[in-house]
């Protein structure tokens, strides 16, 4: 009878559903936009990893005879150029695939490093508190209010451009956002009742941070990470465009746009395709992040999960 009344209560709260992986899967299958975005990203990653396998031509191969061929045309030796060629007769499509390798890895590694740095700083600062926290957060505020693109330019001007320097600069100039968020989450968590409870149950500090807090703060950090990757890919393009990023002949999307600029009126495909590539990548990342945010948000979750 007692348990019976409990069951009744349970039915009263029937709206609360636990969310499992399969729920997420179902949800994303229902959300056409998010689905498209993730499919695009998967394809992108596959291409990036298997560039040698997927690229129909060598990205650096010189073939002056077939310069500036429009899309869907075939070259002097009858080879087919899906997206046309640049003025050196290099296949745009192949260069896009190899360029993805550069752009994407800059984004991934750069964001990854800054995330690592930022989250460690932030979590410790938020949980430890005190002077340490003050110093870290001062630093964060200070660096956040710097004109980052400018500083990046200046540093790259001093150190010289190139893949590695680019990543270094990015991780040094982007960790703050992660730190700020991680610290905020840590603060909330520190005062959260379930953490207090864990403490009163004699749970050790380390276990509290990694067993209790981390899983609860993971989602927003993942969202931020996704966004940062997009931002870094865009920045890489800008810096390469200015000649401070990746150096030729390595193909990078930003460089491809910069090079195609001269022919923008006569050979639109030189600029259009790399531009689209960057746009779609960033857009997909943003859409995905948006979706993750929505489905992991305890308030919105229920609506989204049961949404069609």
């Amino acid at each position, binding site marked *: 009878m007692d348990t019976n009344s409990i069951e009744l209560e349970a039915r009263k709260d029937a709206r609360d559903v636990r969310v499992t992986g399969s729920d997420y899967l179902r949800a994303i299958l229902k959300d056409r936009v998010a689905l498209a975005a993730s499919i695009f990203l998967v394809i992108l990653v596959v291409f990036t990893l298997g560039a040698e396998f997927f690229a129909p031509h060598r990205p650096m191969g010189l073939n002056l005879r077939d310069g500036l061929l429009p899309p869907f045309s075939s070259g002097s030796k009858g080879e087919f150029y899906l997206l046309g060629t640049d003025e050196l007769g290099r296949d745009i499509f192949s260069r896009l695939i190899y360029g993805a390798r550069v752009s994407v890895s800059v984004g991934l590694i750069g964001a990854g490093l800054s995330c690592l740095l930022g989250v460690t700083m932030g979590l410790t600062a938020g949980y430890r508190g005190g002077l340490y926290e003050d110093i870290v957060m001062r630093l964060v505020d200070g660096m956040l209010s710097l004109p980052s693109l400018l500083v990046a330019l200046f540093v790259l001007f001093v150190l010289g451009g190139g893949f590695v320097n680019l990543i270094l600069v990015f991780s040094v100039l982007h960790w703050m956002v992660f730190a700020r968020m991680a610290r905020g989450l840590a603060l909330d968590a520190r005062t959260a009742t379930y953490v207090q409870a864990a403490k009163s149950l004699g749970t050790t500090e380390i276990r509290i941070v990694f067993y209790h807090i981390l899983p609860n703060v993971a989602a927003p950090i993942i969202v931020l990470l996704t966004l940062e990757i*997009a931002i870094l890919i865009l920045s890489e393009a800008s810096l390469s465009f200015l000649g401070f990023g990746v150096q030729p002949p390595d193909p990078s999307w930003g460089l491809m746009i910069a090079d195609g600029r001269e022919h923008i009126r006569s050979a639109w495909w030189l600029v259009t395709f790399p531009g689209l590539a960057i746009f779609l990548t960033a857009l997909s990342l943003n*859409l995905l992040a948006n979706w993750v945010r929505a489905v992991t948000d305890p308030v919105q979750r229920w609506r989204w999960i049961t*949404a069609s």
Partner: protein
Amino acid sequence: MAYLIKRIVNSAIILFLTVSFVFFAGRLIGDPALNMLGPGASDVALENLRRAAGLNDPILIQYFRYVVNLLSGDFGISYRYGFSVLPSERLSEIGQPVIDIVLERLPATFFLAAAAMGFAVPIGVFMGVTAAAYPRSAADRIVTVLSLAGVSIVQFWLGLMLIVFFAVQLGWLPTGGYGEWQHVILPALTLAARPIGRIAQVTRSAVLEELAKPYIMTAHAKGVPVNRVVYLHSLKNAAIPIVTMIGDELSALLTGAILVEKIFAWPGIGLLIIDSLSRSDLPLIQASIVVVAALVVCVNLLVDLAYRLLNPRIRFGKTEA
């Protein structure tokens, strides 16, 4: 009040750090005299310059001097700007003070930033509020995708596309330059894309959050017209994150306009920075960065003041009764 002072002190510290950064980073390039006069410079010329500029003193003395000069508005003189000549000690007499050069470019940048925000704020806020007023509707979805698109687009690419379409194909607007109102439209639009997106997103989530709060129901219960509820009651409460975002984007415009200024030949500080980078005109680059940083800091301060006007809770640092 105390809070304000605190903020100003912080800003000062930030600026100080920036200055130190540009000074020491600048030294990483190598001998400043060599940088100013170029490798072809005769030892005499170099030595003269070193003596004149006190480059033989210990680095910390020089650093101190640099800071003091900055405080008195002296950012040094450019050994590059306006000369195509090979190194010569005579240049020190005729070099231009970099600060003048920088200030000369500021208005153009301000104008551009203002124009871009002029597009971005109304459009962004309107999009955001509309989306929030009808959550999960078609309008909401469209706004979401559009705003994300605005954030995801490559600015300089968008700029090139706009030039090709509006200036070249249609010939409606000039391809670039500065002067009449037509010149500002394309660059401003290019720059606006991103802020529109971000402002729309922030507005949407902020207003959505507010609309879920009890006081909204109170307003309805009072018989307040729906639009008034959305645009007055909720928006004023949602204002703070929106203003923050506007501030961030404004700072971003002041710095991020570099590429757009280049593409549209807009004679702002961005273009200047690119030129001086290609001339490796160190004093000019340093001055530009410091000035821009100062601007950004000011914007942040203004945003902070805006908070106090918008949110009675933190106004004048009142504590809960």
